[in-house]
């Protein structure tokens, strides 16, 4: 995955610095971090969970954990991404929330309003992934891609993926294997 050249103005502290300041008890830094990342997190979570109440609950738990444990990030691996860290916490909290509600679990908000196919010139971003990977992903069956996305992009385990997607673990394993084979064939 390509990294874009940094275009941030040097005066603006980045998220990692905000997190480190929050770890020292700086409320304002935490508030700024929240202002910058919360809309993104809300949108990303809503794409995986249709119930806004669960999303709100997960976000609250996530940011509370971020505030309380900010020190463990600041003391953690150098060069880690603060935003990625927040997402790692959030997606696990989401899985936990699904697990708690296992008896009335609902599938995530996949396939709601289909978007009109984007125009060719708007596919410039596909370059981010590399053409061959992009093609391979596009041709992948949606249910396989879903599994691959949860496991690779969200970094979840098989069990967590099964809870997130509301599938049996065996199905997740089979689909992951099929997705791997399909990707390997498409890339070779």
């Amino acid at each position, binding site marked *: *995955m390509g990294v874009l050249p940094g275009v941030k103005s040097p005066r603006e502290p980045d998220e990692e610095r905000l997190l480190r300041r929050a770890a020292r008890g700086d409320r304002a830094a935490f508030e700024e971090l929240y202002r910058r990342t919360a809309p993104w997190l809300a949108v990303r979570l809503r794409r995986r969970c249709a119930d806004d109440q669960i999303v709100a609950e997960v976000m*609250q738990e996530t940011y509370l954990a971020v505030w309380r444990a900010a020190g463990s990030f600041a003391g953690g691996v150098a060069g880690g991404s603060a935003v990625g860290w927040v997402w790692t916490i959030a997606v696990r909290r989401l899985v936990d929330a699904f697990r708690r509600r296992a008896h009335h679990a609902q599938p995530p908000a996949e396939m709601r*309003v289909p978007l009109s196919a984007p125009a060719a010139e708007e596919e410039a*971003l596909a370059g981010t*992934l590399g053409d061959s990977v992009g*093609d391979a992903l596009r041709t992948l069956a949606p249910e396989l891609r879903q599994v691959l*996305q949860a496991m690779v992009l969200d970094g979840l385990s098989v069990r967590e993926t099964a809870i997130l997607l509301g599938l049996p673990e065996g199905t997740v394993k089979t689909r992951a294997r099929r997705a791997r084979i399909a990707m390997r064939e498409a890339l070779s």
Partner: protein
Amino acid sequence: MGHVSEHLLAGYVAGGVLPGDQEWAVEGHLEKCGQCRARLAGAAGPSVTDLVGGVWAGLEPHLAAPPQPRPRRTVAWLRGWATPVMVPWLLMVIAVGALAVLLDQIYDGSRPSFVLLLSPVLPVFGVAASWTRGLDPSYELTAATPRAGLELVLRRTTAVLTPVLAVLLAAGWLTGAWIGFGLLPSLAFATGTLALGTFVGIAWAASILIGLWLGALVVPTVSFGGSVLLAPATWPGWLAAVAVFAGFIVFRRDTFTRLAAQH
């Protein structure tokens, strides 16, 4: 290479289906690009704004408590080697070592060396303190962890032996010649405690060895002015004892995991 297009961003925010590679690219890009996250916040409708505001309102009362302090690496590392219970015992061992040196300096040459006499038994106290139910309030908790067993026992023994041997070395250096020999009996007693501990538990093993030390070393030294066992010529014997005990520990290492549940 570019940023996420308006159209794509709007589709992403709306929660609609995107072609697989694009959804993947958008999520990957948003995680890295602060600008696009800011644009996303601008593009988000009132439902997202309300959600974000609502969560903040719920979050605010909890922020009064300050964040947890950053975990200290050295402290975490030390905990893998020693328990706080060992600290008073270690201090005692060091103090006894220092006193022995002092006494040796005062009674220069007129009686057998206190350092030599005390050195075998000093680490035994430390080893006992590191793995005994009666001395460690968190013994059951420790014994129930997957780390319990020979490795943890050896780690703690090492944590005890290192300062003790340092004290003994310094004491030997201060009092004179026999540095190398003085360490052998203490090593033998420490490994002996562990080896015997595989049969009867560390606490009992320590008591038995302290008894042995009194009977075989202290009493003869006090009554006859010296014990044959502490003569420097006995070093092959002590070395053999260390080797035998160490072999025993390795041979019976499985006992420690079971032993942990009993003693």
